[in-house]
């Protein structure tokens, strides 16, 4: 009896679980990569209810902005020759680009193979003719005070777009309807949702999350403390 009383199975199991859980902070991402074919098949099965490998929606204000096609405008101004505003229909009429990318969030989750469709910024900016002193572009969201910016060099990377559709459907409200910025090379917080205003500026300003300590250049895998 005293023998059994000396066996500490309980604390052994407890410590094992605790150690396993804590160390998984180091190996969790790798393990989930190995398991992802399994989990993503499973999440396909259960769809939106079970969000393994799915989206998470972050907002910074009380509620998500509501898109009203009648009143919504995309203003483009700042250092441009011809400032103007676009209605939703005018944006839809611009030349369309399509792409498939992985979406990476700085908090560690990823959505693979997102199908985007939208407008290249070169097409958009052609219409307003940026001045030579414009060196960066600032995106302002309807969700105040969210904003972020890119340098012109970053803006013209291959897969940067003003997205109007995701996975074959017009952007939904959680995904930033009617228009959001997509820059797959960077973490999601650079992709301003519920876009309402674009400004060409001489110096790249500090965006919402950058003001809270996140990196200005949010390269996936080599910013915000990540290294690959």
């Amino acid at each position: 009896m005293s023998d059994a009383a000396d066996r500490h199975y309980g604390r052994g199991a407890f410590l094992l679980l605790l150690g396993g859980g804590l160390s998984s902070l180091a190996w969790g991402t790798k393990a989930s990569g190995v398991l992802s074919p399994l989990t993503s098949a499973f999440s396909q099965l259960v769809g939106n209810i079970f969000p393994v490998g799915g989206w998470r929606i972050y907002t910074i204000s009380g509620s998500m902005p509501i898109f009203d096609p009648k009143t919504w405008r995309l203003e483009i101004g700042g250092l441009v020759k011809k400032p103007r505003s676009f209605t939703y229909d005018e944006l839809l009429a611009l030349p369309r680009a399509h792409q498939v990318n992985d979406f990476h969030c700085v908090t560690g989750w990823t959505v693979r193979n997102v199908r985007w469709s939208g407008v290249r910024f070169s097409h958009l900016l052609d219409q307003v003719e940026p001045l030579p002193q414009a060196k960066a572009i600032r995106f302002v969201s309807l969700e105040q005070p969210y904003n972020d910016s890119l340098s012109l060099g970053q803006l013209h990377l291959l897969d940067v777009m003003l997205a109007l559709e995701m996975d074959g459907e017009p952007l939904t409200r959680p995904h930033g309807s009617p228009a959001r910025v997509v820059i797959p090379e960077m973490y999601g917080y650079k992709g301003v949702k519920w876009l309402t205003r674009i400004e060409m500026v001489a110096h790249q300003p500090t965006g919402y999350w950058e003001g809270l300590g996140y990196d200005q250049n949010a390269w996936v895998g080599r910013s915000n403390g990540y290294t690959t």
Partner: protein
Amino acid sequence: MHWVHATAFCILLGSGLCLYLPSLAEAVNRRPLLKSIHLYTAASWAGALLLIFVLGDRRSLLRTAREVDRLDPNGRMNRGQQLNTIVTAAFAILFAITGFLLWYGERDTRFRFASTLLVHDWLMYVSFVLFLGHLYYALILPSTRHSLSGMTRGWVREDWAKRRHPGWVAALRRND
């Protein structure tokens, strides 16, 4: 202890899922409020556990801890309940640590790790399954649901205890 855990778990699960599932996030659409609820519930839960330990019946807590530690076959709990207690205790700490890292990582990038959210999520999945199982045994399965009386009223019928936990009854008799 049980009800502090139960209440906190339900509130944290509810507010967490609303923060987390796109469909629920859109339906509720009050992220900062939910974030505060989640955060303050977690803080109150930790505080309440501390209070229980400081002001509560420490001898009874230690007795339970000792029983679980030895996986005592003649204890108040059966093997499954003892294991559930161990997992719950370990998960509580892991939830607290990863939750703290998620909160603090937003303020200091040195504490932001790629896996934190993943671990927090997976703890939730496993806990959710355990929680459903726990509810099934406590509320639905006829042969075990009388144990709910133990959780709500602190006592169970002797004939039931003799049937389900004979070793425990015998041990109690010996101590009388």
